[in-house]
């Protein structure tokens, strides 16, 4: 913790100190890259991010285009790759087509874009609001703390997905609405973590010293407490991206999230799951992609926790 304290103090100080700041973060990065699970997580996320970013280029077909014209594979076509022995007179399709004759590979790629944006946006929104609430509650203490935390407790009393369904149903169908719903149900988790973190920092000597030197409450919170309370949020936030992706997919699966015809993994599973016995690939491909992305963020989150938590230093 002492190292962190020095770095933060330096960050608010002169240029020499700033040069020293980079040291601990580089160490942490090195530690992170030495952890196999984190590296695997990073690789998965990088690949999926690349796929999402360049989906328009990589995808052989527009995601919503029905391929049922002459010379096209048609509805629920099996995968056909000429290089792998598929007859040359059959149209190529890497993973086959879905029930609306759309290319499954192209839709899965575009689904990655939606899931990643949703994951980052949802977790980011929830972290921002949750952190603010938690920080204010933890720093202010007393009645405000009690009030804010009881509200968080009430929200935590509901199963997250059920509450998200209720909120999304109220807001209406759509990706933005489901994103907001998932963000709202995630807020209490971040608020709790941030509050605990702030409580552990606000009583430290350097904070007391800053207060004695005339630092305002706002200054204490923003400049002294928050920077040193952020570490757990980075870990929880990273893990939360995977959860957000999963919950948003669940809402889409239930018809509350992304609306047809746009590609989203949860919605893709929902529209085809009746064919799980006869055409399993159409369901398994988006399911596998979803699992992969969530596992990626979970592995990265675990790695970050191992790296950033000094009690777990090896």
């Amino acid at each position, binding site marked *: 913790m002492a190292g962190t304290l020095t770095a933060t103090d330096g960050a608010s100080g002169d240029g020499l100190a700033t040069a020293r700041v980079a040291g601990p973060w580089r160490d942490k990065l090195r530690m992170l890259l030495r952890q196999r699970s984190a590296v695997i997580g990073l690789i998965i996320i990088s690949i999926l991010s690349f796929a999402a970013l360049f989906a328009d280029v990589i995808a052989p077909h527009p995601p919503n285009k029905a391929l049922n014209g002459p010379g096209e594979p048609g*509805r629920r076509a099996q995968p056909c790759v000429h290089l792998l022995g598929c007859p040359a007179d059959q149209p190529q399709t890497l993973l086959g087509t879905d*029930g*609306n004759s759309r290319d499954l590979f192209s839709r899965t790629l575009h689904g990655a874009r939606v899931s990643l944006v949703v994951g980052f946006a949802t977790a980011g929104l929830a972290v921002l609001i949750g952190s603010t609430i938690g920080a204010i509650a933890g720093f202010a203490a007393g009645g405000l703390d009690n009030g804010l935390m009881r509200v968080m407790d009430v929200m935590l009393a509901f199963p997250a997905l059920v509450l998200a369904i209720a909120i999304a149903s109220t807001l209406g169908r759509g990706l933005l609405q489901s994103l907001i719903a998932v963000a709202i149900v995630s807020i209490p988790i971040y608020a709790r973590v941030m509050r605990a973190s702030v409580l552990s920092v606000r009583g430290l000597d350097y904070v007391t010293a800053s207060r004695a030197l005339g630092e305002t409450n706002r200054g204490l919170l923003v400049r002294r407490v928050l920077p040193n309370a952020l570490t757990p949020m980075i870990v929880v936030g990273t893990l939360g991206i995977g959860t957000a992706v999963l919950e948003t997919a669940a809402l889409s699966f239930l018809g509350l999230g992304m*609306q*047809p015809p746009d590609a989203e993994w949860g919605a893709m599973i929902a*529209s085809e*799951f*009746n*064919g799980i*016995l006869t055409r399993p690939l159409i369901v398994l491909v988006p399911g596998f992609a979803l699992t992969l992305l969530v596992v990626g963020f979970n592995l990265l989150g675990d790695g970050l926790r191992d790296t950033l938590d000094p009690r777990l230093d090896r």
Partner: protein
Amino acid sequence: MTRRSTRAGVASLGTATLLVASLGGGTFAQGSPEPAPAAAAVMSYPNYGGEVDCEARTFNGTEYRGSIKSIEATDASTVVFTLCAPDPAFLAKVAFSAFQIDDTDYLLTAGADRSIVEKPNGTGPYQLGDWVRGDQVILNAYAGYHGDAALSPTAIFRWSSQPGQKFIELQSGNVDGIDNVQPDDVEAIEGDPNLQLIPREGLNVFYIGFNDTAAPFDNEKIRQAIAQGIDRQAIVDQFYPAGSEVASHFVPCSIAFGCEGESWYDFDLAAAQALLAEGMAEAGVDSISTTISLRVVDRGYLPLPEQVATAIQAQLQDNLGITATLDVQESGTFIDNADLGLLKGLHLLGWGADYPDPTNFLDYHFGEGASAQFGNGFPDIHAALRAGASTAVDAERQAAYTDVNNLLKQHVPMIPVAHGGSATAWAAGLQGNPHSSPLSNEVLSVIGPGTDDQLVFMQSGEPAGLYCADESDGEALRICEQIKESLYAFEVGGVAAIPALATECAANDDLTVWTCTLKDGVTFHNGATLDAGDVVLSYAVQWDAAHPLHLGRDGSFTYFAGLFGGFLNAPPAAE
């Protein structure tokens, strides 16, 4: 069992009971163990406010657009229906499950507090054991049934909107039969020696509906443009099983007079786009954004609702530049919203034949008594339908339905898309007669259980209610048909109307007076004996919108209005 006095039964209903009470004021003496024989009419309806004036089309000073003039119980076992015009489809209509007969006493009490919606009391081979909401309806064989006893002591209806789940339940032996086999599962069922697939003829129609009271679909050219801009053949080719066909008319061609007149528009993109531009200019709109409302419940006419909706959404966008969002609604809500005219965009719905006559398809949807589903309706279609329904002369019916179909093509209240073939699937070891009905009214009493003493059938949805006078969904009607009976019924697995509670309904020469003689010894599940008064009251509560028992589940009674033209004392049409 002795019947209670009708007069006593209505005492608690207050002033509104006048209409009902007078029904019991005839020769059916209080305290008499059996209804007294009567030589003259002892019960009739309407029994107040004078007679229906068929020429002036009025009753009691108000407009009356219906086709029934009066219903009389001339004695305990005879009912006479007098119509304003000949009705060649009368027997088929009275065979339909919306016109099942209730016990008078039961109707007076359970109809008044609406408990009849959940606790039907009929004369059928099964009686309601329990309706576990959200789970199943359990039926027990009725020991006092007047016909052949049910082969299975217990019949259970379960439901799932997921075709995949139905298939798995059948494969695993949890259910004995399923409805609406998904096209993609046909091959697997045919290849499984433990299962049997029984195809069902496509006596149905899937259509894309418009509401002509809502802009921009109040513009006929826009509706016509969409009719020409949807490639219906592509939809049928992609999503429908073998035995399905593109709809050339609203009524399937296997029904007599169904396909008179011009065939529907061919897919013509250039014409559609030109017409759309013209219509949009008339309507003063630059672009069209709308919704496609649907329910995700598979039916024979629409086996893959979401996928078909997505395909239509894509065609609207690609072909006509119309942006549409899908609006999935709960099944019962969707039907209610359609009936109330609340679906202002496009909606995907269909119709399975209740009896094989054009009136069943056309009058219900486009007749004077039709719901607000398509908006205000079209007077020229009303007139043509009236002409078709009120003659038994083939040439006249042909001419009338030619007009109807041509006018439908002109006004485009909907786009008929497909007549879908479908199938039921059953476990292979069942006794009796596992079957598919072209009217989707499979009779479970003729099917015996397999290895246990119960027969479980899985359909696509839970019924909204079991008072089928006020239901229009097949999921409700199929269950009602096991419990209750009409004067006539349809043969098992067929479409011919055969006597049920009546031994016969004989018509006069011009088909305007139908005299129905009831079977003797028919008892309801509550022990009451069937008599002609039950028939009169069962019809009267539907027919008269001012009747104190005209309540039902939501009070729409759409079948009666649709098939018999309208209600007595119908509320004024909304402007």
